[in-house]
């Protein structure tokens, strides 16, 4: 082998590898490798400068700025057009423009966390209890808005109820602007009402009636009722049926709403054992597929094509689902059953179930707040960014509170419904109902009002710092053994239940349980909950 030969082959290999490396280098998001700029000092300097500036110049002279906003979920097809309209108004009124970015729903949680930890300049971001608002606020991911709000968002500061501001207060600071739209989002499911009637099945009242429906759909309609990804569908039925109140994760929770201090490891309970045995029979009868854990398709997508019959939803997303079925003129009647009827109470959402926050990295927090104030309270701004362009995505209804979707002459198949995750800036007086929308939603609201009980589990704040290694191990065990067991996919339930429990113990579940108990009791003591 000559030296020349060796060099030639080395050269070829290196060229190929370099091109490969260069191609990969762009998206090498290896978590820890990017050094985060120390932006703390910069942010506080900025705040001081701004206060001075505002005091000196009043409100007249505003420098031109571009703000970066982030929302969860996916952009609409016409997003650029909508934002361009929005910016036209905004640059006139506040000499600002926004750049609206989206995380997409795929892996949104990872992206969301990375946005905050990487120190990327973001001026406004969606925040909510279900995206760890309390934890992130305590860790210092967001800017304290307490002193900025009265000055830069005076309208919002005035029209958000005082108890809502209190509910987002973490360690004396206000780190987000909660939405103002009391809602109930209990779990439930949409189903084929026409099939239920056709097969002469009773109205749903309990799990037995649900089982009868699933069985009839499977045996008589020859359709797999929970088609696609099944886990969430089954898990939510389980926890509402037994009234478990999970705290922090699916594995640990209070045994019922009335016994908040009775916190247990859910898989260690007798109810769990009874349930997974039942689920084994459901799985064997084929109520869902053997590949239910690997399927990435939503159960609801199969209902639309007539190949499914059960899909968990909360009332408003059920409304969206039913409206879509109606708009597409699919020949089926969809019903909705809320699980609240099992135990006859419902928990309203926390104010910060949806909200907007400003990350520490923001360069223009005060302007961003001014834009938010406009967006929430000025209906021209609100309608545009929430419902889309008038005449294209919606049209005025008979009164001010209703809109028509789609706008006359618009084909929903070409211009889909404008439904970005606009929940963070909801302000009830500005919100509109949809004409011809699902009437069930209002009926449910009436049903819920008298049985509403306050949320005593949501605000329990936990960062798991002392037990994070155990928590990681527990998550792992839950994924590997808990999920298949819940879906009855293992061949021997007794043996796999024993394995699951043993593995949880080995992973240190007791330590996590102790931690959750301590934190929960701390919260209950503070609020005087027994």
């Amino acid at each position, binding site marked *: 082998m000559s030296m020349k*030969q060796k060099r030639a082959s*080395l050269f070829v290999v290196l060229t*190929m590898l370099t091109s490969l490396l260069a191609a990969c280098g762009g998206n090498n998001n290896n978590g820890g490798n990017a050094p985060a700029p120390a932006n703390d000092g910069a942010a506080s300097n900025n705040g001081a400068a701004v206060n001075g500036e505002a005091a000196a110049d009043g409100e007249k002279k505003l420098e031109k700025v571009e703000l970066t906003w982030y929302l969860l979920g996916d952009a609409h097809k016409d997003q650029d057009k909508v934002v361009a309209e929005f910016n036209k108004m905004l640059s006139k009124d506040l000499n600002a423009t926004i750049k609206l970015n989206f995380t997409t729903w795929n892996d949104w*949680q990872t992206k969301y966390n990375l946005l905050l930890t990487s120190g990327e300049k973001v001026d406004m971001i969606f925040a909510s209890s279900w995206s*760890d608002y309390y934890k992130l606020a305590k860790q210092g991911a967001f800017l304290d808005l307490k002193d900025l709000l009265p000055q830069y968002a005076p309208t919002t500061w005035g029209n958000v109820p005082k108890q809502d501001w209190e509910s987002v207060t973490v360690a004396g600071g206000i780190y987000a602007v909660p939405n103002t739209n009391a809602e109930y989002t209990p779990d439930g499911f949409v189903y084929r009402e026409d099939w239920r009637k056709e097969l002469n099945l009773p109205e749903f009242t309990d799990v037995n009636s649900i089982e009868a429906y699933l069985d009839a759909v499977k045996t008589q309609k020859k359709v797999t009722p929970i088609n696609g990804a099944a886990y969430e569908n089954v898990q939510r039925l389980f926890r509402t049926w037994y009234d478990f109140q999970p705290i922090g994760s699916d594995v640990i929770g209070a045994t019922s709403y009335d016994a908040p201090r009775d916190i247990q490891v859910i898989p260690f309970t007798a109810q769990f054992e009874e349930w997974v045995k039942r689920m084994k029979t459901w799985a064997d009868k084929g109520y869902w597929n053997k590949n239910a854990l690997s399927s990435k398709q939503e159960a609801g997508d199969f209902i639309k094509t007539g190949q499914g019959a059960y899909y968990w939803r909360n009332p408003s997303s059920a409304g969206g689902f039913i409206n879509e079925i109606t708009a597409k003129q699919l020949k089926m009647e969809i019903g909705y059953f809320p699980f609240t009827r099992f135990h006859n109470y419902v928990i309203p959402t926390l104010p910060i179930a949806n909200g907007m926050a400003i990350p520490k990295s923001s360069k223009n927090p005060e302007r961003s707040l001014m834009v938010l104030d406009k967006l929430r309270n000025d209906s021209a701004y609100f309608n545009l960014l929430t419902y889309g362009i008038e005449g294209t995505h919606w049209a005025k209804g008979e009164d001010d509170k209703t809109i028509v979707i789609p706008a006359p002459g618009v084909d929903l198949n070409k211009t889909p419904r404008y439904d970005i995750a606009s929940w963070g800036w909801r302000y009830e007086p500005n919100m509109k109902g949809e004409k011809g929308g699902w009437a069930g939603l209002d009926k449910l609201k009436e049903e819920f009002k008298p049985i509403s009980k306050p949320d005593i589990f949501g605000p329990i704040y936990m960062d798991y710092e002392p037990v994070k290694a155990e928590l990681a*191990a527990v998550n792992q065990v839950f994924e590997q053994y808990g999920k298949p067991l819940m879906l009855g996919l293992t061949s021997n339930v007794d043996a796999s239940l024993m394995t699951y429990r043993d593995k949880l113990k080995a992973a240190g579940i007791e330590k996590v349980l102790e931690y959750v108990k301590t934190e929960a009791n701390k919260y209950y003591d503070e609020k005087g909950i027994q």
Partner: protein
Amino acid sequence: MTGKHGLMRELSRNKTMFLMIAPTLIFFIVFSYVPMVGIYYAFTKFDFEGGLFGSEFIGFENFRFLFESGLLWNLTKNTVLYNLAFLIIGNVMQLVCAIFLSQLPGKLFKKSAQSVMFLPYFLSWVLVGAFVFNLFSDLGVVNTVLKQLGMQPYDFYIQTAPWKYIIVFFSVWKGLGYGTVIYLAAIMSISDELYEAARIDGANIFQQIRRITLPLLKPTFILLILFSLGGILKGQFDLFYQIIGSNGMLYDATDIIDTYVFRSLTVNFDIGMGTAAGLYQSFFGFILIMSVNTIIKKTREDYALF
């Protein structure tokens, strides 16, 4: 000669040479060496106030979750074995294909065969994951065929046995075209004179391959293996995540360090623990490549990397 003096003289003597290498050096310093500072995250309790250096130093606390689960050995074993299978089967297949292609007469067929082999390389794993699901799911191609033939359908998604082969197959299939091109280029650089001489001596085509092509490809082969060895503890996250997803039934046979870390940390996002896991992989990869290189240097100095 003192170091400094020598360096200055070296610099001034080979100015042009150093100027030419500068972009590469800067590239690696900026994109590979400076970011290494981030390793420090593995030893801190991250908080937003402090950032990288302001966060509290907690030593090896972040590594605890890796060792405490008791799964580390199984995960490391899976990762290494899968990568070895990818490496060896992949390279051998690529080599064989390259030799076949080089011996094929007819330019058109050769080119089109090469293109067809190269295509899967451009597919994303998301797409490949969808293929796999549609092949092996309850109503997938394989089970439909089995049913048509009057056989029992097979529940791929709750059996661990077939997945080793499925995963290795798809990995090899996807990388085949790319690797083949590298070997083909190496074969093309072999001088025709050698083959001509062999033919005159009466060597048939198999003898030519055995006595000329293969020995001359050995350095390329070893080089590619050596390059890949450094990453042997780094699993192909995309591949495993897209094909297996969150199906716990299959983890015993298919879980690698990367998917394990991803799963453990998505619920409680922690930058320190994530970095710790990455550091564990890099550190052992480094040790591995250093020792293999040393062994090769001792035995066959020509083939060593550095």
